[in-house]
């Protein structure tokens, strides 16, 4: 059953990557990276279960932390770069 979960996770990660490549706007790409990161967390947890290694869950937790911080960081960058270009909104 866990191998089916791993295969489904890999399929969804490939879908997220294809959305990241196809995505017209920047926000599609950031969304796809966010989904990819969350799925990696799940993949690490499930693989940790598959191979009987309970210490993988710490890695999954740290990865979830880093994924969140990176998405917020990238968004913070894009929000202010728009201001520099337009420069007219209050």
């Amino acid at each position: 059953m866990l191998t089916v979960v791993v295969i489904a996770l890999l399929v969804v990660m490939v879908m997220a990557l294809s959305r990241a490549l196809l995505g017209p706007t920047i926000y599609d790409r950031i969304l796809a990276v966010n989904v990819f990161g969350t799925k990696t967390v799940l993949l690490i947890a499930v693989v940790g279960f598959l191979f009987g290694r309970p210490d993988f869950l710490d890695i999954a937790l740290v990865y979830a932390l880093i994924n969140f911080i990176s998405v917020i960081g990238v968004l913070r960058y894009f929000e202010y770069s728009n201001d520099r270009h337009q420069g007219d909104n209050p």
Partner: protein
Amino acid sequence: MIALLLEGVSVLCLGTGIFLLVSGGVGLLRFPEVFSRMHAAGVTETLAASLILLGLMLLAGWGIVMFKLLLILLFILITSPTASHALAKSAVHGGLGVDPDRNETS
């Protein structure tokens, strides 16, 4: 007997988690616009992730492993709405927002 029951419920949780995962992934690809894709991604990130982690918790049984899985679940449930809110806010700020006075029905 109880172990069999737990196994069955965890397989059920993992099954529905997989279904939601794949349907959210397909929605991520096929939806026309950023905000509807965000909705599809939200489905996979919150519900499918919590179902899969719940299934793993049932497999693991009482102990430190279940506690770590609970931490991961709580963290994902707290941060993914925040991340999608920040993403939607910066998308609206970046000019992708829906025009408020153009209502859908007319």
